[in-house]
């Protein structure tokens, strides 16, 4: 019997295995405790978390040599061989792991609006709700620093650059005609709705080597990746209406939209300064398609087409005495197809194509003009993610452009054609040197078959984190752009125009407040110069023109101080002169103004479920040339002021009422003066003020979304 009890005891002893204890402390290289770290033995469940003072202690049934693992987010996992039972307390030091998310982003010359990235200054919704813009992307961006308001065009003029010096890209692909068709001194709108985009990157200079053909700035728009719900959207507005439907499946999603705009009813109610025969009207349609390829790939297709026309009377440009018909009819189509995918842990690829077609038929000054522009943009970029600290991008692209300009007047028939293939290649590296320093260096080369010229363009930018909430960044770049078609029609072997940018930026931002200041210097070279004018003829086209633009911008945004309110203030100072085109001497160009101020204010009143907005803008006097006086561009207009308001009433979750008024006070703003091309009988040139189309622009709209309710079936069973 004794033997039996001995045997039983040994069996029991097997079950009562020894409990070994492990204890110690988890710290970082500077000796500070790391609480909440996961401390455990490999291949077991046994472990614990470190306490507030970094200490840990747990027991285990394992013996002999074991691997102890200590891990905590943001730090490199530590593995240590220990011998159990442990004889002494362990000190484990964790090294910080570098993560790009915590690095500093380069802000010089860039304004990003995004729903996804951290630390952005604007969200796409901000663009749609800015008073005075009536949901026009360019209108809203005009309230940001670095822009000069040139109201008669409705386009973006950035830091002393002309409107065509800012180019638009959608999903990385070029948009040749981003603005709807118009005539001189009649503002146009950006063709694309801000709701299409998840992110907008507006650069005021120094932009990435990925883009080219824009001497001043780029507007990079990224469309929404995933359409999430089956829904139908309607809009009924004082200017027209639209209907759109989205159908979403597991892998595919498609949206179709149809819209019609006609300003005739509005013009008959509200008196306009111009004499209209047929108010602007347009019919447009678009299609958006998404196809998700496995887990990481996405194919995006965007197709848009529109037909627009307008007909008004304008004084003839020769003498400014007779009113002649001015008609425009435009046909436009745009296709954008892009594909991107992750090929491996490190490689990702993008390939895309855009097709742009625009045909304008104009009747002006008793001349018939037909202008046609076609372009294809092909682009392929590869990104290699070496590690957390280095990413390299390289790409190749091709623009195939064909422009044709036909003039039929009483005397003659004239045709001009340009056929050009622009090719470009670029490479750029994003270097995350540390948590405090990020650099981006790139090189780009462009070649034009028409001009027969190669233009290299280096780019460099660096950002340095000066404090927890502040940073300094610097950007330098050389930029090249093909001369406008007007000049290439006459002389096809002109050189690329070029500009050099130097930008210094300081930014301080907390969660709800941002302060940003930027200093810049731009040097223009190889600008087109010629002698003569369009009536008597142009001669001596060359690239001897030059110019400069320098100044500083200030931006302050505050979403905290006033409850439920969000406001931003921007001020831009610009000092610029050019000696280009047929300027007799160096002068301030007529689109430039020294001071531009905007104050944008938005306030949500929850009891009324309404967001109210107001924008105040001021632009200092602009130069214009008066041929009746000596000198060139020596005269100045008065300053421009505008107070615009808007209100969005969220009647229900899916019904929004929207009302806005631009230039509420009806201030008479004059942008400049048109002068007759030939003197009248007294030897003077007649003039006409270039004004707003009407003292005010009023807008009302209802936006309704009907979504297929997924819970409906479930509730019916209750």
């Amino acid at each position: 019997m004794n033997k039996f009890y001995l045997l039983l005891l040994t069996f029991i002893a097997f079950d009562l295995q020894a409990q070994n204890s492990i204890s110690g402390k988890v710290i970082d290289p500077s000796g500070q405790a790391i609480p909440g770290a996961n401390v455990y033995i490999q291949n077991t469940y046994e472990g614990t978390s470190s306490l507030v003072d970094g200490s840990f202690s747990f027991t285990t049934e394992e013996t002999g040599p074991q691997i102890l693992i200590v891990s905590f987010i943001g730090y490199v996992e530590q593995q240590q061989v220990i011998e159990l039972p442990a004889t002494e307390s362990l000190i484990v030091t964790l090294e910080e792991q570098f993560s790009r998310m915590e690095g500093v982003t380069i802000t010089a010359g860039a304004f990003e609006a995004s729903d996804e990235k951290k630390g952005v200054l604007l969200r796409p919704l901000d663009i749609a709700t800015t008073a005075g813009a009536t949901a026009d992307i360019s209108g809203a961006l005009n309230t940001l620093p670095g822009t000069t308001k040139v109201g008669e065009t409705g386009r973006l003029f950035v830091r002393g650059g002309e409107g065509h010096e800012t180019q638009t890209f959608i999903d990385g692909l070029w948009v040749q005609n981003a603005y709807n068709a118009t005539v001189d001194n009649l503002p146009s709108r950006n063709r694309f709705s801000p709701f299409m985009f998840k992110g907008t990157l507006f650069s005021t200079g120094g932009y990435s080597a990925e883009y080219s053909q824009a001497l001043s700035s780029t507007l990079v728009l990224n469309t929404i990746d995933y359409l999430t719900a089956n829904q139908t959207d309607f809009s009924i507005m004082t200017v027209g209406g639209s209907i759109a439907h989205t159908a979403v499946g597991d892998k595919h999603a498609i949206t179709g939209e149809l819209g019609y705009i006609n300003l005739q009813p509005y013009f008959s109610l509200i008196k306009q300064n111009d004499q209209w025969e047929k108010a602007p009207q347009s019919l447009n349609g678009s299609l958006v398609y998404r196809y998700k390829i496995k887990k990481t790939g996405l194919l995006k297709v965007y197709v848009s087409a529109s037909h627009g026309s307008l007909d008004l009377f304008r004084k003839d440009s020769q003498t400014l005495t007779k009113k002649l018909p001015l008609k425009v009819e435009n046909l436009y189509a745009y296709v954008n197809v892009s594909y991107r995918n992750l090929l491996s842990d490190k490689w990702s690829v993008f390939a895309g194509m855009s097709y742009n077609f625009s045909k304008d038929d104009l009747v002006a000054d008793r001349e018939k003009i037909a202008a046609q522009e076609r372009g294809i943009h092909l682009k392929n970029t590869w990104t290699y993610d070496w590690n957390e600290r280095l990413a390299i991008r390289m790409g190749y692209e091709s623009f195939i452009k064909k422009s044709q300009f036909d003039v039929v007047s009483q005397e003659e028939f004239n045709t001009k054609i340009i056929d050009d293939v622009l090719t470009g290649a670029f490479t750029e590296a994003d270097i995350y040197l540390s948590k405090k320093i990020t650099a981006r260096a790139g090189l780009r080369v462009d070649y034009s078959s028409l001009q027969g010229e190669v233009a290299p363009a280096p780019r460099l930018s660096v950002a340095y984190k000066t404090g927890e909430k502040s940073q300094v960044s610097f950007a330098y770049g050389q930029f090249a752009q093909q001369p406008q078609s007007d000049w290439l029609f006459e002389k096809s072997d002109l050189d690329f125009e070029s500009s050099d940018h130097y930008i210094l930026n300081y930014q301080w931002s907390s969660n709800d407040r941002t302060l940003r200041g930027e200093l810049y210097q731009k040097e223009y070279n190889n600008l087109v110069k010629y002698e003569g004018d369009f009536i008597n003829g142009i001669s001596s086209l060359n690239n001897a023109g030059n110019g400069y633009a320098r100044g500083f911008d200030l931006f302050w945004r505050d979403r905290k101080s006033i409850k439920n309110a969000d406001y931003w203030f921007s001020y831009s100072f610009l000092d610029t002169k050019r000696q280009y085109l047929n300027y007799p001497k160096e002068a301030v160009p007529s689109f430039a103004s020294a001071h531009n101020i905007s104050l944008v204010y938005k306030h949500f009143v929850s009891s009324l479920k309404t967001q109210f907005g107001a924008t105040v803008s001021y632009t200092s006097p602009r130069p214009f040339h008066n041929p009746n006086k000596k000198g060139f561009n020596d005269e100045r207009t008065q300053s421009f002021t505008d107070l615009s308001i808007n209100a969005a009433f969220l009647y229900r979750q899916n019904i929004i009422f929207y009302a806005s008024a631009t230039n509420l006070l009806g201030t008479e703003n004059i942008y400049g003066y048109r002068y007759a091309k030939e003197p009248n009988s007294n030897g003077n040139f007649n003039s006409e003020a270039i004004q707003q189309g009407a003292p005010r622009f009023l807008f009302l709209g209802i936006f309704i979304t009907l979504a297929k309710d997924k819970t409906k079936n479930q509730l019916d069973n209750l």
Partner: protein
Amino acid sequence: MKTIYLSIISLFTCFTLMAGNGAYEKAMQKNLEAMAHAQDKQAMLEAANGFERIANNEPEEWLPLYYAALTYINMSFFETGVEAKDAALNKASSFIDRASFIAPEESEIVLLEGYQTMMLLSADPGNRGQSLSPKVMQLFGKAMQMNPENPRAYYLMAQMEFGTAQFFGNGTEKACALVNKSLELFGKGTSENTISPSWGEENANKLGQECSSEQKQ
């Protein structure tokens, strides 16, 4: 003597068997209790770390990853400020991704992803409401389609409806109908498996009380 040896051997095998299979369930039970009783961030971190350790040892199981994510989502309630909430929710997201890789057809994981997105939305509703709201509804709807008997799906959908009703000043009938349906399904009892998801009844009851007090008015 033979019988004694036999019984000793069977006792011994019993002990070893218990040491083998029960380990996973035992560890899960222990951490589930820790998660249920956690009242502060440190306690939640310990429970989450516990689930993470189990997950590292059981590459075929999605439940430990699921609960680690759920713990981090609950932790975000205790955090103040958008950045801190986002940090906890992003950690939850990494666990949800791992779990859905193992079990892509599991409705509880889809529902949890909707819950995590809903919490991201509530961290900064003014800015995220418009962009995240459709994603939340889509995920809840998908989970409901995958398993129409899941009480948590109705409870979470009700929570979302309550939020929007509050913001837009609409009635709460739809939300209350969903709460009642969820309570009905909770009442039907849980599955035999004691470690599969069974949370939410307490909170659903609280919502239900709000509904009945409103009806009385």
